[in-house]
């Protein structure tokens, strides 16, 4: 094997000890791989690794999981769960050939989804390392992953958004005010998802109930979610809280998930409970967030690059047929993704890898102010993702999250993306927008941006303003 792991670039030979070293060094440059001491030491070594990788077969990658089978429950899930029939269809092809097959205009999204169950995360990550940014857009665009909860996401010609109405002290009235504002721009068809600042069962029950009360009064077809720890959401469900989507942050190794306080067993239990006690129609009722660098930050990356670890998070997510999965791509900070270029690349990689894994992918195109990144960078990433057929993006007032203290994308941006690309909301949500006078003939009406348009009725006002007069 090792005699094959070498390539010549402009007169110089580069050889690699293992498939793992090839995978690590074939990544586009990013600060997390530098920090971990895993990246190529020169551009020539990087492209040599890509050359070697392009000649490895999918079967060879199957035999080289990045985390040992014996010590990691995710690796066992991936290896044992890899569908043999699907794997046989491409198994003998080299990664270079797989890349060309994905890009071939005759290969349809249905063709890709048919082989997806035969791909392990290492295969998904491997082919991603051989693709340019435009390759990632072309290949992802053809893969449509359609999912259903109360709404339908992922249909061609449509794009949705998560409305993220966070409040620094979890004021329910403040949360509802932002929801009304976001709905008035046509945001919120993927989920109304609140990050609580205080993670207690009581506050999770309260926020879920209050948001659901508003959704019911407005008869708006969407999903509610409170992004507290999954075990807290389980207790909230058991107390009878109305919960549509069950959320958890996940990562690509057993150890990294332990750092999040979850395991396969806990996730299995939560998914079963949500199907039983959750309030959504389904069948897709789970919501996961991921992000490159998570495993490294937990020191649970097993010497593996952050693209491969991210693909493993998607390999875990697909077990639960989730309604939503998004990478929170720039949240983690510049020591993992240094600048706008690295964040953009990672956003496109994550979206493609998620789609190739059969997931309904969104993205939180975001950054912190100590990264070399600004709103122009995330606007660029949003436009690229919209052209790549992303299922949903984030909607926050002015793109500034006043609770989590990071910068992301705005209600206005989601409206503008629909304008630029001629995209429409989820069909159930679009019909509601038309009913309330916010949407007509494929675009927002003049009334858009006026939250008080949704406050015509006294019972709606009572839910928003009067915590004492609230009724279910």
């Amino acid at each position, binding site marked *: 094997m090792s005699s094959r792991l070498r390539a010549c670039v402009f007169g110089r030979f580069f050889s690699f000890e293992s498939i793992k070293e090839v995978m690590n060094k074939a990544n586009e440059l990013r600060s997390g791989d530098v*920090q971990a001491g895993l990246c190529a030491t020169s551009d020539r070594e990087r492209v040599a690794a890509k050359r070697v990788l392009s000649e490895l077969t999918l079967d060879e990658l199957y035999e080289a999981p990045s985390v040992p089978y014996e010590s990691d429950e995710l690796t066992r899930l991936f290896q044992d769960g890899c569908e043999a029939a699907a794997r046989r269809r491409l198994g003998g092809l080299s990664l270079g050939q797989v890349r060309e097959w994905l890009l071939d205009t005759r290969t349809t999204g249905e063709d890709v989804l048919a082989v997806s169950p035969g791909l392990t995360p290492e295969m998904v990550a491997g082919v991603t390392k051989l693709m340019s940014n435009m390759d990632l857009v072309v290949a992802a665009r053809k893969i449509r992953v359609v999912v259903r909860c109360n709404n339908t996401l992922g249909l061609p010609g449509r794009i949705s958004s998560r409305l993220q109405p966070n409040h620094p002290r979890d004021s329910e009235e403040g949360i509802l*005010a932002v929801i009304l504002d976001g709905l008035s721009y046509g945001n919120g068809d993927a989920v109304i998802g609140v990050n609580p600042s205080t993670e207690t069962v009581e506050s999770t029950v309260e926020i879920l109930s209050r948001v659901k009360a508003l959704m019911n009064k407005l008869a708006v077809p969407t999903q509610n979610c409170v992004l507290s720890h999954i075990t807290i959401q389980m207790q909230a469900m058991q107390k009878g809280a109305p919960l549509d989507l069950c959320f958890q942050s996940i990562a690509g190794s057993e150890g990294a998930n332990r750092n999040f306080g979850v395991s396969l067993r806990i996730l299995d239990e939560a998914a079963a409970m949500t199907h039983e006690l959750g309030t959504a129609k389904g069948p897709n009722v789970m919501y996961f967030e991921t992000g490159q660098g998570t495993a490294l930050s937990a020191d649970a990356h097993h010497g593996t690059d952050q693209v491969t670890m991210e693909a493993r998070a998607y390999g875990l997510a697909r077990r639960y047929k989730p309604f939503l999965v998004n990478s929170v791509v720039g949240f983690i900070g510049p020591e993992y993704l*240094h600048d706008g270029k690295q964040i953009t690349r990672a956003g496109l990689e994550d979206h493609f890898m998620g789609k190739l894994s059969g997931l309904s992918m969104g993205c939180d195109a975001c950054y912190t102010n*100590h990264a070399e990144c600004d709103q122009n960078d995330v606007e660029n990433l949003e436009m690229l993702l919209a052209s790549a057929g992303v299922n949903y993006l984030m909607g926050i007032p002015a793109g500034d999250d006043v609770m989590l203290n990071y910068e992301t994308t705005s209600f*206005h941006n989601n409206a*503008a993306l629909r304008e630029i690309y001629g995209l429409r909301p989820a069909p159930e949500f679009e019909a509601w927008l038309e009913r309330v006078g916010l949407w007509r003939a494929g675009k927002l009406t003049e009334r858009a941006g*006026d*939250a*008080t348009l949704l406050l015509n009725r006294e019972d709606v006002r009572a839910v928003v303003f009067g915590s004492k007069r609230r009724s279910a």
Partner: protein
Amino acid sequence: MSLDDSTVDSIVEAVLRNLREGAPPAAARPLGAGPVERAETVQACTPAPRPVHAVPAPAHAALLPRLVALTPSQVAMGRAGNRFRTDDYLRAREGQADARDAVHSEVPDDWPARHQLLSLRTQCVDRPEYLLFPSKGRRLDAGSVAALAAQRDSAPDVQLIVGDGLSPNAVVQNGAATLAAMQRAFAAAGWRVGAGCYVKYARIAVADEIGVLVRARATVLLVGERPGLGTGDSLSVYIAVNPKLGQDNAEKNCISNVRPIGIAPEEAAAQTVTILKRGLQLGVGGVALGLGWGRK
């Protein structure tokens, strides 16, 4: 292409002018940041208040201010087509400019001496390395360890530490007042406070190493926090009881948003004393104190 003489002259002139005006040296700026800010442009000013809302002809005009008052988020912004109004666009840019300038600022080299602080530094060689390699900002360099060795027997009740963190500007603007408020409050509480120190390129965990070296019962770190929009002057206070290397952040207490329009220095100092009294009495810190200031 070569520069003609008049261009060279104008560059030299500009450099000399900047030096006369006390602008920071160009080396302190991020690569490609362009010319240094002119000192004469630095003066106190507050932004004009935002309009309550910018929605033309709302369906229920009386309800809109009530909605706006419910959240610090920017709702009812109005729109220019599907984009921000110009004023909102520029306000967002101002907020981010303040944050980014804060991240890339530096505390002047003579600042520690002027505040009677021992000057230390971590293992980072410069600010870019500080931003990309957090682990190097958690440990002191060899010279700083040696400097602290002289204080090995000071064993104070509370070791006060100032660190530049992710916003050196916050230290420059609010560090002195917060430090003074802490010193007054600790003296009033009757605690022995060792000689204070300042750490350049500091992450939170460097306080643990300092606390261990001087055998302090507790450390209090004032550090520039990661700036949000328009919060480049915001300090955080990290309080750690029984410092040890590798102590988890959940074992520390944090007070954030210490700045003129947030938590005032005196209030932050009073909260710190409350936390420390309980912490020193029980010998634990962080979430275990049950004071609601624990930080994950």
